[in-house]
């Protein structure tokens, strides 16, 4: 007699999984021409993503620099120098 543990599947459960998964049929099916087209297209898509990302980052950094320099903000603002004078030398 087959003894099942808590996580062991029963035969009808395995059967149900197989029946369910078998019913999943791709609508279009394999398309070799589309695959070849994607293979050719993909490096250019990736290159475009990299170029757009690099350009965006450059614009953000440049804009931040000009805004901070123009409005005297953050580390690009005029630095104040605190002068410590030794009272003993006066």
């Amino acid at each position, binding site marked *: 007699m087959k003894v099942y543990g*808590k996580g062991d599947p029963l035969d009808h459960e395995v059967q149900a999984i197989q029946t369910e998964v078998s019913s999943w049929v791709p609508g279009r099916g*394999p398309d070799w021409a589309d695959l070849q087209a994607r293979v050719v297209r*993909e490096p250019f898509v990736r290159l475009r993503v990299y170029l757009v990302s690099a350009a965006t980052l450059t614009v953000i950094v440049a804009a931040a620099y000009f805004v901070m320099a123009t409005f005297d903000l953050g580390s690009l603002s005029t630095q104040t120098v605190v002068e410590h004078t030794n009272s003993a030398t006066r």
Partner: protein
Amino acid sequence: MGQAPDLDPKTQFRELYVREYPSVFRSVRAMVLDSATAEDLTQEAFVRAYRAREKYRPSGPPGAWLHRIAVNVAISYLRRQKLSRIIAPKLLAGPYLGDYGRVEAKTVLERALARLSPKVRAAVVLHYYHGYTRDEVAKALGIPSGTVASRIAKAMAVMRVELVGSEQKLEAARSER
């Protein structure tokens, strides 16, 4: 595993593509629970496999190699989806319904599968439908073999609860009539 002779991805990729497409589609479909998305991801997986075909080493059947690529493609897709929901939930997606139950399950078994995480769903399908051994499933999912065994066992227990619950609801509905 299939009884058909193993095809070499380097020289027989087109034949391999046609033969393995439905089985890879089913694994991806189990993970994303949506046919249209699964088809697109399956094609993407084969594009990646085509690019990597020269690096293929026959340590296992090419089907397992393809499944590994497809599982990674599906996981990347699900991560992107999750990220897009976090970044712009209202623009890119509808209301957040939890990690695993987003797609409306059509059948009782699909509902039971939807209660599992995508990786566990893939493990269940790879093991019980495709007949991969636990070691092969472990390689495809990038997890230890022992983890596969415990995850599949837990998955079956979770699915059983869902299936029994559905049967009870059905019985109750019948008895009310």
